[in-house]
């Protein structure tokens, strides 16, 4: 019963919020309360007690519970941040629906065909959030936003089709009976392409930087945090339920570890050469997806632990990054086309949030990404010098991209230099004087949200042990994990 409630509760609240969407403040309040209740519900739900309902197996494993508690918590913070910030008319209701669908996917992880289709449906629903405009907006939706939405729609539908086809083929495959008909290699290739598209791995990444650049940052955050992370959990469960994919694909998985490392390197390189803040942020997420793939493809306890921890880190760092971006892009009283290079001094909380979120994605101490990156480097060391050089090279490039963000947008000289008072000329009136500029301050609630996310990231970075133990316990229960690396 509680499993069904996990799915239906956010969906019902999402529908209610849709009906009340013009009452912005009320909807935000209801949604935050609902998400806190959902988080509590997840924590109280018993784990590993599978039930059968209408022919489907519903279960919540400890890893699923960890992420399912995290999703509503960070979504509640993001929704809270929109209190005084412009956001799409349907953002809150779509966020709740996506949480409901993500809950369904995590509870139904033992039904891969269902989860593949739910992932597509969630992607299609999020398209509505991408092209969403604030209530009674006086502007039109930009053509490039429609282009990004269309690209996302097409790629996610194709990803779903590839994954579904892979599961159909693996259902037909019988080891020893039909070995030549459907090679597990083909199935692994289909599934990797599907998840590559979903998680924006190079070379399937093009949708993510476009999305981050064109859509509202909070919508991008929901998509990356909830849907991409659920995709990762789904991939782990696929490997668990179809061990043939691991057992008969030694070379394929070895290739994937290299592809993951190369994807991280290319992602970081592309982040470095971008000239727009949002695109750099998007490519840093692409870099991180490569690191996650590397950890996952090693199929070792440390690698998987690193990948899952990294996904958890992403769940904190991406909302922090996106809320900070929204804050930094707020009009601050200066002319809209003025180059703004002093954002850290102008808006210290949002500026620090941006710096720290990028640092967390890159894995700088003492933030939450440090422990996961160390785990990944530890595994890479077993593969030899070229692999560790690739990963460290990727991280150094990402670090350079962060330095570029700091130089170009954050720590430039403050624009507000003291100006000598102009001499009042004879006959001058008040209308002849330049108007006094009123620079607005950081929106209070959004700044608090940034500080809370920053605090959590810092706390996990300083004391990662409980999280590592929880993840390690789950990894120990996975049957496909190998004790050592296979080169």
């Amino acid at each position, binding site marked *: 019963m509680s499993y069904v409630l996990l799915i239906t509760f956010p969906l019902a609240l999402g529908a209610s919020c849709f009906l009340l969407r013009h009452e912005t403040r009320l909807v935000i309040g209801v949604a935050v309360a609902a998400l806190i209740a959902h988080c509590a519900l997840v924590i109280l739900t018993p784990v590993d007690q599978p039930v059968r309902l209408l022919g*489907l197996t519903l279960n919540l494993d400890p890893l699923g519970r960890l992420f399912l508690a995290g999703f509503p918590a960070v979504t509640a913070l993001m929704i809270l941040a929109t209190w005084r910030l412009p956001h799409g008319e349907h953002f809150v209701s779509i966020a709740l629906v996506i949480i409901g669908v993500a809950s369904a996917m995590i509870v139904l992880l033992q039904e891969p065909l269902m989860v593949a289709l739910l992932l597509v449906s969630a992607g*299609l629903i999020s*398209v509505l959030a991408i092209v969403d405009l604030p209530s009674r907006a006086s502007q039109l939706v930009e053509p490039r936003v429609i282009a990004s939405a269309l690209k996302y729609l097409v790629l996610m539908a194709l990803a779903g089709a590839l994954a579904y086809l892979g599961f*159909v083929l693996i259902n037909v495959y019988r080891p020893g009976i039909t070995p030549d*008909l459907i090679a597990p290699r083909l199935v692994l290739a289909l599934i990797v392409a599907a998840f590559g598209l979903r998680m924006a791995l190079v070379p399937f990444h093009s949708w993510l930087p476009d999305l981050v650049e064109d859509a509202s940052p909070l919508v991008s955050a929901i998509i990356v945090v909830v849907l991409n992370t659920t995709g990762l959990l789904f991939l782990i469960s696929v490997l668990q339920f179809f061990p043939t994919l691991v057992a008969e694909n030694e070379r394929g998985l070895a290739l994937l570890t290299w592809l993951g490392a190369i994807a991280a390197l290319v992602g970081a390189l592309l982040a470095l050469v971008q000239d727009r803040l949002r695109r750099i942020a998007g490519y840093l997420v692409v870099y991180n997806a490569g690191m996650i793939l590397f950890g996952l493809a090693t199929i070792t306890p440390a690698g998987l632990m690193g990948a899952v921890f990294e996904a958890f880190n992403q769940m904190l760092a991406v909302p922090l990054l996106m809320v900070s971006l929204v804050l930094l892009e707020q009009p601050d009283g200066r002319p809209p086309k003025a180059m703004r290079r002093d954002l850290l001094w102008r808006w210290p909380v949002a500026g620090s949030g941006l710096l720290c979120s990028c640092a967390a994605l890159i894995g700088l101490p003492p933030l939450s990404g440090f422990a996961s990156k160390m785990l990944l480097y530890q595994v890479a060391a077993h593969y030899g010098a070229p692999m560790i050089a690739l990963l460290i090279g990727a991280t150094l490039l990402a670090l350079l991209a962060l330095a570029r963000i700091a130089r170009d947008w954050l720590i430039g000289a403050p624009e507000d230099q003291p100006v000598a008072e102009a001499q009042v000329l004879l006959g001058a009136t008040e209308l002849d004087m330049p108007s006094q500029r009123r620079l607005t301050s950081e929106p209070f609630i959004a700044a608090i949200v940034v500080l809370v996310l920053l605090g959590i990231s810092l706390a996990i970075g300083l004391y990662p042990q409980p999280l590592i133990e929880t993840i390690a316990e789950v990894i120990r229960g996975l049957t496909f994990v190998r004790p050592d690396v296979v080169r």
Partner: protein
Amino acid sequence: MPIFTINWAIVSLALSSGMVLLLRDWRITIPAMLINYLSVAWFLAQQQFITPDLTIGELTLSTTIVVKVITGFAASAILGITAVTFSREYNLEDLDEFSLAELRRAARRAQRQRAGEPFRLADYVVPFWALVLAALASIALPRLYPIGSQTIDFAWYWLGLTGLFTIVLASDTLKTGLGLLLVVSSIDLVYTAIASTVQVFPLALLSLTTIVLSLSVAYLSGLMYGRLKTLDLSVLYKP
């Protein structure tokens, strides 16, 4: 080949998806998509992959086939209605003067573009060769990677490939959507035809996904037409 051995369901399926790939006018492609859904249902009913549990007059059918027909009608109707009405009009009184001017400019640009675009046979050359390529691949792939019987393999490879080529060659949003629907129809066919046990929920969810997909495409098409007065994808990438 004697005429009585021709599988007309396959012929209808192949022709309708070929028309979706080859032609540009939604007045032809959307009905072709509907015919395609009906052909897939006809083919599945003919092959009896699922035990029939429904009798309509002298016809014995599986409920799954009926669900597929309803899904096909729903998806085609959604796209058809969108194409006929074609506009999600903005609430003009909410818009500022810049946005109103931008809308007028977009309408003029689209009108000019339509006037300057006569029928050109050259526009159909690439889709035609794509169709030939899809036909060759659909004949070769069932031999190289057989999954079910030759007929099933030809049907799903053909649907999938024409769908993919339609997406790649589409010049408007609606046609991209039709390509996606062909791809989804292809995996629906392969699942129904070859899965050892066909489960109700994945099939139901697949139908639901098809409808949600056509709704999303319809929404985006409406939004794009309302904003740019055209569905031409090239307009989206103009600076």
